[in-house]
């Protein structure tokens, strides 16, 4: 999975899993004792963490917490495009 996953595919997977976390978050707010939902949400959160880490290692961090700290003295966060940018541009 790791190698044959393009940047776009990995981002799409992060979006999907993160969306499921968002939706489970709201659902669990009003159904805090739904055991099936709790198990599902736990799996999703673990998967999201894993994917964010994988993305950060290959392409750079989407969140400050997933920054990979290396010997290079470069602020990797700044190199990441904002999500509205056109490819290859800054706007």
């Amino acid at each position, binding site marked *: 999975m790791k190698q044959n996953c393009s940047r776009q595919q990995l*981002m*799409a997977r*992060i*979006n999907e899993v*993160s*969306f499921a976390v*968002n*939706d489970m*978050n*709201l*659902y669990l*707010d*009003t*159904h*805090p004792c739904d055991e099936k939902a709790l198990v599902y949400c736990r799996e999703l959160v673990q998967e999201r963490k894993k994917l964010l880490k994988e993305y950060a290692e290959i392409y750079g*961090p*989407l*969140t*400050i*917490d997933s920054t990979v700290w290396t010997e290079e003295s470069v602020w990797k*966060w700044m190199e*990441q*495009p*904002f*999500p*509205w940018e*056109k490819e290859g541009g800054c*706007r």
Partner: protein
Amino acid sequence: MWNYEKRLQYPVNITQPNAKIAQYIMSQYGGPDGEISASMRYLSQRFTMPNRMAAAVLNDIATEELAHLEMVSTIVHQLTRDLSMEEIEKSGLGPYYIDHTVGVWPQAAGGVPFNACEFQSKGDPITDLFENLAAEQKARSTYDNILRVVRDMPEIADPIKFLRAREVVHFQRFGEALRSIQEELDAKNFYAFNPSFDNPCTASCEGCK
């Protein structure tokens, strides 16, 4: 406190600029039923929710609305990026261009600037939650109106459909939050007092001295 993620909640990739559509969709950024209004409404109201569930629903939906206003402003930005002067003048975006060039600024489709009077924070959870139920439906109707215009433009319609669907989910969650508060009130008269202000109740309910 919030943390930022450098991604959109749902991807937006618009390749064809369209000044007219930008002017319409702008309303869901800074218009009367737009995402700024939604987020600011829930962020303001959450402090006087009388139980943890209602406060959580407001807090977490307000947070998602921040992601939605980012999506809507991205749509507006991508629709106005690379516009020609001719298109700006022809489409009716001229007056907006004079004041903002193609910067993103919160206003309604008809040009009315964003204003906190688009929403209430009444300090009464029953009142506020009914407003929120209505707000989600009003936003859903606006997205329906937008969808009738952009139905043949999938790169615009797709994220708008996502946003519309979220209004429906939020409506459902607000309904559950409202029920959780009503269950803690006098079943004979939910409106006898303000559970966030009258403590113990000093309004119109029986037994108040």
